[in-house]
């Protein structure tokens, strides 16, 4: 794997994903502007800009809520995995929508020749000691800066340069951004606008995202408890046919990383559960075209030795497997990445 820059590699799925994404954003903002101007016609330029601020702001908030729901949804139900495939473009698009929201706010002050009011508001230091009356725009600016950092490091160059664990840890800052955005809305427009739709949207979206993360975390915790090893240190996986064909069962030692034990017809092999690309859960993938395929972004590896097919160079650690008393067992001590370690089932068991 190299840290050299490579342009985004487009394929049909990415183009369709982005097409649906851009169409959805344009449709939402357009519908918001049309309905908003129809129900309460703006009387001047500032009111038009105010309507645009609301359209972009609600769009950015809903996009961020959706982005944060994709991860847990994909862990709870595989049918949501396609949403995860190009989530980074979703995130970068979100940044641009949020940036347009902020620029519209600047324009709102500018057309009224009131930019000094904005400076006064942001530098009203005593207000930072209050809860109601806190300069809520500061919260939005802080969230926007986090989104800028994440959008500018979203490319695989940064993923490779920082390494997946560091990159994933950095991108967890999106949760902080979400918290800041919720408070930005709660201490901002919710204080001025009495329409119940805004707190309802905010509360339902935040509760849904939180619930999904808590449910997914609970499921992950159960799996991370792991299974006890036998006297020789091997872990029981189950009878060969309990491993779905062309798919895997994951096992872990208590406190250890997970191992994906795959069955490909009569062949059984074990790989680390951690994809070399973005640490995706290899064990939740499938065998496609004879290769173990990560469910997140489609990185592929040979089951035999954990190597990506040429010209790719990624390698995963493999594990020894055996069948003892009719049960597949795996040795949790990893072999060097690229070491062949599959076994073949007797024909009557395949």
């Amino acid at each position, binding site marked *: 794997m190299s840290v050299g820059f490579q342009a985004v590699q487009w394929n049909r799925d990415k183009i369709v994903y982005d097409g649906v994404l851009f169409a959805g954003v344009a449709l939402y903002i357009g519908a918001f502007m049309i309905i908003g101007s129809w129900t309460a016609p703006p009387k001047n330029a500032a009111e038009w800009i105010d309507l645009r601020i609301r359209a972009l702001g609600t769009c950015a908030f809903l996009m961020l809520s959706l982005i944060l729901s994709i991860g847990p949804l994909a862990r709870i139900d595989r049918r949501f995995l396609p949403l995860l495939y190009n989530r980074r473009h979703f995130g970068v698009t979100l940044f641009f929508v949020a940036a347009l929201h902020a620029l519209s706010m600047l324009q*709102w002050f500018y057309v009224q020749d009131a930019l000094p009011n904005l400076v006064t508001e942001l530098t009203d230091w005593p207000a930072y000691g209050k809860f109601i009356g806190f300069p809520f725009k500061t919260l939005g600016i802080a969230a926007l800066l986090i989104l800028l950092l994440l959008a500018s490091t979203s490319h695989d160059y940064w993923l490779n340069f920082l390494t997946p664990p560091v990159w994933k840890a950095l991108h967890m800052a999106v949760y902080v951004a979400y918290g800041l955005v919720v408070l930005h809305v709660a201490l901002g427009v919710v204080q001025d606008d009495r329409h119940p739709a805004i707190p309802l949207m905010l509360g339902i979206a935040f509760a849904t995202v939180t619930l999904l993360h808590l449910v997914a975390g609970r499921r992950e915790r159960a799996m991370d408890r792991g299974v006890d090893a036998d006297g020789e240190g091997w872990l029981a996986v189950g009878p060969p046919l309990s491993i779905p064909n062309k798919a895997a069962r994951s096992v872990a030692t208590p406190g250890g990383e997970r191992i994906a034990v795959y069955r490909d017809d009569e062949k059984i092999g074990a790989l680390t559960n951690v994809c070399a690309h973005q640490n995706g859960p290899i064990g939740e993938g499938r065998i496609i075209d004879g290769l173990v395929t990560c469910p997140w972004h489609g990185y592929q590896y040979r089951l035999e030795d954990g190597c990506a097919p040429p010209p790719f160079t990624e390698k995963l650690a493999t594990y020894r497997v055996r069948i003892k008393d009719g049960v597949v067992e795996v040795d949790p001590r990893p072999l060097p990445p690229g070491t062949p370690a599959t076994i073949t089932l007797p024909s009557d068991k395949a």
Partner: protein
Amino acid sequence: MMRPHRAAHRALWPALALAIGLGFVMALFLRPPAPLEAPRTAQENPR
């Protein structure tokens, strides 16, 4: 995801939900009562 990353998720979300949820509820209940007079103009009520 690796184990430390999953553990961080599990630790972070309950804390985030509690802190932000509490902030949201407080912001809702502590907001000043709606003014009875006509809404102010944009100039009088800078964003």
